[in-house]
């Protein structure tokens, strides 16, 4: 793999101008200051980390670089020349290419069409040639190790991980001077593919701005990182000279919180809260597992091993093919999300933008939507009771009151996730089923989410959690079930619950 990256990159040529030089960038949206003073630079061939909590201003920096918004003040220089793109196309023409966190692929177009937007390959008479477009796309896919994907496939049919790979690959294939990667590994359980590509392009002198919540990745890839806090660049640090706690302190400032709590004691035999026996359907071949009362059970696995369909069946989003789902000892049929809610299962989905939230509605309304029926008198919603529920849940998920009246689409990813979990909890479930609940959220929010899940099971609930981050599972769960090829490959708990053990199971080298 990309072990060469563990070594410091070649010493930058002092004479060459930095790929990117950002000085005192500020940008406000109305009364909200998104960034107030951000300065940093990226040298040729450098992978520069941008670190910060949600809402620290990282996405605004990405938007400025991608030509989506213009800064109110400050200067940006690209290779020593002033850089002020008026549109995404202008940014691309100047040599800046971005892989967005909220993927920007069109689901109804083929991969080839997506890769070649906005100008397709032309054949006879200047008309779009599908054959030529797919040939060019196939070359690009092959060049970046994605040869197993056919360029004629509609993006809609791809898994989230493959979508993310195609999104990254499209940005890289434009051969930019500066590559911006916003949470590029959020959906990838094996980032080695990306690391190899980064090794290749940085050797050619491309600068990379790397935004990730995974500090281990950042340490592996980057020598320098800039920490943002409240819209200001606090410090550009050499990552060799600072430990995780130090970075964390810079990110949260004086109000440092303790994120690490010791793993909980392994549970003794407990009554089953819910479970499945020989469940099959979709990509699930045969899964049997059981979650006890007061227990957090993790699910680990490489992408596409059946975990998504397992969670969808439990949530009633997808019908179970065969096998049994039990809740509190009784077999149940979960044919719809309403059925799931009836038996007390609360589901936190993976793609909050499309599966969970109504981005155009206010945060508080988003939170009470599923329980509106219970808040009413004679079918008319009782505003006071609604506000009481919102206040209680917002408090529980640590969501600041000032966000509640904003459209939820305007909130950062972490706060959206808090609101979503608050909504699921507002419905009063007894069992939580969470699919990658910390995807693309910052450390502070992660800690809140962990605490929530623990508090939930301590009060007699039960939780099943899937995560792409093994370290997170080990930190959070009592037991971890590993799936492979739609079956249970093994289970680990107690001292056997280690990253090495999970990786071995996940790769199919069981027992």
């Amino acid at each position, binding site marked *: 793999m990309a072990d060469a990256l563990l070594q410091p990159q070649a010493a930058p040529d002092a004479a060459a101008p930095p790929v990117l030089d950002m000085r005192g960038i500020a940008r406000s949206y109305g009364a909200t200051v998104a960034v107030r003073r951000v300065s940093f630079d990226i040298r040729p061939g450098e992978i520069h980390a941008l670190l910060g909590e949600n809402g620290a201003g990282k996405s605004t920096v990405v938007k400025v670089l*991608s030509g*989506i918004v213009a800064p109110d003040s400050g200067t940006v220089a690209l290779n020593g020349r002033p850089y002020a793109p008026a549109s*995404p*196309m202008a940014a*691309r023409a100047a040599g800046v290419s*971005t892989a*967005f966190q909220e*993927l*920007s*692929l*069109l*689901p*109804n*177009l*083929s991969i080839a*069409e*997506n890769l070649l*937007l*906005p*100008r*397709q390959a032309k054949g006879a008479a*200047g*008309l*779009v*040639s599908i054959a030529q477009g797919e040939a060019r796309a196939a070359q690009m896919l*092959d060049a970046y*190790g994605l*040869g*197993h*994907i*056919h360029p*004629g*496939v*509609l993006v*809609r*049919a*791809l*898994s989230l991980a*493959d979508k993310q790979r195609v999104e990254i690959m499209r940005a890289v294939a434009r051969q930019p001077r500066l590559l911006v990667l916003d949470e590029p590994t959020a959906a990838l*359980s*094996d980032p*080695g*593919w990306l690391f190899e590509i980064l090794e290749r392009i940085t050797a050619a002198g491309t600068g990379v701005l790397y935004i990730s919540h995974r500090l281990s990745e950042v340490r592996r890839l980057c020598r320098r990182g800039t920490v943002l806090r409240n819209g200001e660049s606090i410090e550009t640090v050499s990552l060799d000279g600072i430990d995780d706690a130090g970075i964390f302190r810079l990110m949260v400032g004086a109000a440092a919180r303790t994120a690490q709590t010791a793993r909980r004691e392994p549970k003794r035999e407990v009554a089953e809260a819910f479970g499945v026996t020989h469940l099959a359907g*979709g*990509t699930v071949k045969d899964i049997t597992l059981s979650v006890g009362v007061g227990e957090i059970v993790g699910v680990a696995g*490489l*992408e*596409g091993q059946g975990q*998504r*369909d397992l969670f*969808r069946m439990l949530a009633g989003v*997808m019908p179970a093919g065969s096998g049994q789902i039990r809740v509190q000892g009784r077999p149940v049929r979960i044919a719809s999300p309403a059925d799931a809610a009836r038996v007390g299962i609360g589901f936190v989905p993976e793609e909050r933008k499309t599966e969970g939230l109504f981005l155009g509605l206010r945060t508080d309304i988003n939170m009470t939507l599923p329980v509106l029926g219970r808040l009413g008198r004679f079918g008319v919603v009782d505003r006071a009771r609604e506000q009481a529920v919102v206040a209680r849940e917002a408090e529980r998920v640590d969501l600041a009151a000032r966000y509640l009246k904003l459209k939820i689409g305007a909130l950062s990813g972490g706060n959206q996730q808090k609101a979503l979990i608050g909504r699921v909890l507002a419905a009063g479930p007894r069992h939580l089923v969470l699919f990658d609940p910390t995807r693309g959220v910052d450390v502070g929010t992660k800690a809140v989410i962990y605490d929530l899940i623990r508090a939930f099971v301590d009060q007699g609930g039960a939780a099943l959690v899937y995560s792409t981050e093994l370290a997170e599972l080990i930190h959070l769960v009592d037991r971890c079930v590993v799936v492979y090829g739609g079956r249970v490959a093994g289970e680990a708990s107690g001292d056997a619950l280690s990253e090495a053990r999970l*990786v071995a199971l*996940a*790769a199919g080298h069981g027992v």
Partner: protein
Amino acid sequence: MQTSPASSGRDAALRPEPLVRRLLGDGTTIIIAILVVLTVVFAATQSDALSASVLTDILNNSLPLALAAAGGTLVVVTRGFDLSVAGVVSLSNVLVAVHGGSGPLGALEGALIAAGAGAAVGAVNGYFVAYWNLQSIALTLATMIVCSGMTLLILDAPGGDVSDFMTYTMTDRIGGVVPVALAIAVAVYVVWRLLRRTDWGVGLYAAGADETAALLAGVPVRRVKLIAYVLAGVCYGLAGFMLTALTSTGTPNVGEPYLLLAFAAIALGGTSFAGGRGGVAGSMLGALTLTLLQKVLFSTGVSSFYTGIFQGVVMIAAVVVAVLFARIGTRGEAHA
């Protein structure tokens, strides 16, 4: 931890869907099936059903609606609604009836006037929707009302003067074989296929599916939408022109039924009102279906009062079948 074989072979799951599945998921398959059924019933109940004159008649009657639905499809694919169709059909109808000349050149002049009026209305719609972000339903409702008002200024009662060339030759068969209406429909379809294979054509579907993503990918979304509305207006104008030939008169409110029928034809043809899915062929066939259905009801002796009920039932059936087909088509789609 590489899970996929690094060999050159592409995974079976990551290939384009097989043809059968694509056909099932494609709305036009359903509309063709409905058409075949209706044609069989029609042929069974009316002895001269498949004669050249009856077929020409059906095509002539379908063409204005087919053109209107084709234009509307462009806007629906961008996730918009264009209600101005009713106003533009009426407007171009009276313009052609009042200002159209005689002979082939006069007809051409009429067609240009109709297309020009439609393009102008479409440009207004497109400009405000694309560049001012106005809601398409509200804005096109307004332009529809404006057009209806202008129609009355041009011609306040049925009348006008439509040339014999338009009335007879435009509704006849070329060389006694190919109906003019069919030739025009095919020409429109060919133009659409060509447009579909331009950057605009790809951008149209991109903008309809996800405007933000399309913008980020570099699609000039505003221009794409503007062009869609202008071309839609041209289609409505030509629909009004052909309607003039069919009715050989100018009638100020002749376009009104087209508002709902055009959307019915679009829905029948499998175009999604959620944007980014569907096409012109389905809508034109949908228009043909609605017309043929009337003929079938007539030939089977059903009172014409039932026409609306049957049209609605067929639409519901088409939508239901489309959903069922789409389910089968996507069964086993990668959830991985």
